[in-house]
């Protein structure tokens, strides 16, 4: 599924990948986990455009990987082409992560709350779940370790964006306010990029705040699709910026010629 973005010469997966890319900078040092096609596209695109020094470790293993295409797993060696180093999970990765040498990580969950915490463990009560999901994996670890956290979702609806998680698998801004600071955790979630809009986080409460609307989407529609009350910025909400022709060309022909990014839709 690739929904066209009204007025933009691209589809929603492309708008999300480009928006993610633009949030990256030259000092981004990132890695990725499972089913992370949008962030992987974003890192590769940023490195080919405005952030040539960006570091990305494919599957958290293959530093500087530059795959010819993105396969059906973002944890597998199909993503490792032309890497400068295959690092090792226990010796290298966890030290780079816990020591914040890596500074950027993106995760998503079956549920996400206003403070950017995520659930990928169970739907329903933990002891008798309606759906047993995969589990938190590394997100329970990395939420507490990594200073620049990005969230994304291709399913912006009230089932995903909930007031209260059934289980907190990964730490975003926690209970909000200064919760992370009190726990000694660096930084926190910066953006949540969805198929409807972009959220940032209100500085005091650390709750999701509308940062931009994708073309054709209204603030009311976003609120309707969100299970918690969204914070609004002062003044008008901008429209999510239009991808350039160059960004779209590079994304489509160099970064992700097989459209793996659509696997998330």
């Amino acid at each position: 599924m690739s929904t066209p973005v009204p007025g933009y010469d691209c589809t929603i997966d492309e708008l999300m990948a480009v928006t993610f890319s633009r949030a990256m900078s030259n000092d981004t040092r990132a890695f990725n986990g499972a089913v992370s096609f949008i962030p992987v596209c974003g890192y590769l695109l940023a490195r080919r455009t405005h952030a040539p020094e960006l570091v990305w470790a494919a599957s958290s293993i293959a530093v500087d990987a530059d795959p010819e295409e993105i396969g059906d797993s973002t944890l597998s060696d199909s993503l490792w082409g032309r890497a400068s180093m295959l690092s090792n999970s226990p010796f290298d990765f966890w030290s780079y992560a816990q020591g914040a040498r890596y500074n950027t990580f993106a995760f998503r969950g079956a549920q996400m709350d206003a403070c950017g915490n995520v659930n990928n463990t169970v739907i329903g009560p933990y002891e008798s779940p309606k759906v047993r999901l995969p589990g938190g994996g590394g997100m329970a670890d990395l939420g507490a370790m990594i200073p620049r956290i990005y969230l994304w979702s291709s399913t912006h609806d009230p089932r995903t964006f909930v007031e209260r998680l059934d289980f907190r698998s990964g730490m975003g801004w926690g209970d909000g306010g200064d919760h992370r600071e009190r726990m000694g955790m660096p930084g926190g979630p910066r953006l949540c990029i969805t198929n409807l809009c972009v959220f940032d986080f209100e500085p005091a409460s650390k709750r999701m705040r509308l940062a931009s609307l994708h073309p054709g989407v209204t603030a009311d529609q976003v609120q309707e699709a969100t299970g918690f009350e969204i914070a609004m910025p002062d003044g008008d909400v901008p429209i999510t910026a239009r991808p350039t022709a160059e960004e779209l060309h590079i994304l489509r022909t160099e970064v992700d010629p097989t459209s793996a990014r659509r696997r998330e839709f």
Partner: protein
Amino acid sequence: MSKVTTLEEAAASVPDGATVAIGGLSMNSAPMALVRELARQQKKDLELVAIVAGMAVDWLVAGGCVRRVLSGLVSFEGLGLAPNFRAAVQSGRVAIEEYSEHLLICRLQAQSHNLPFMPTRAGLGTDVLGLHAASGAVREEKDGPTGEHYVACTRLPVDVALVHAHEADERGTTRVNPKLVWMDNEIVNAAARTVASVERVVDTEAFTSQPERTTYPRFMIDAVAPAPRGSYPCSCFPDYGHDSGFFTAYSQAARDPETFRRFFHEQVVGPDTWDDFLAANDVSTGAPA
């Protein structure tokens, strides 16, 4: 004395009720030939330690071999949930002891380093820690002198680790080629015994000529079971990738119990030998390129 044995004998050495740690990560480098043999031998009440797992756990759950799973994640990634694991946890037939990746790694490190606990920031602020409040297996603490929050991860005893590697000699010296990238060393170092399945058995000279490329010393490996393409349907970098077709067919079969019983028999546990299993799944048994 040679440590080379068969998959059948290696699996037979795993007793019912054992705590078995399974190597690999998600769709990569899991010891599937050994796991299949455990399922064939209808082991009972196993406690599985699988840091980030998928098909291996699902086979053993489908085979009725599992009492409890200690894991950070069990899935088929974008190809879906692990169907038997999901159903068994939802019905309560199999217990899950919930971890994250690094909480489990730190418990294994406390065990291998023979320390009361290993500290980490992993899991802070999540609901995972509350699930361990009664047992104290992992517990949130605050360091007195610095006031820093951390999680103390206590020892995790493991009876047997199962890992897949590229080559070993008959003394048990073992190599993951070109190097280990997953966290199999964490389970090997923590386990009382380790069984390695290998793509091929080689002469000791292959190690003594390049000792800098050895992954596990012989005193850490107790048995070596040859199994070409022994991670199938998972990958064994750089020799072969995972087989998405198997994952998809398996998931589709699991939608209907009778269809799955037939699939599991014909394409997983039924074939007598590992070679027969590969043939049943149209996998070439020739040496990898």
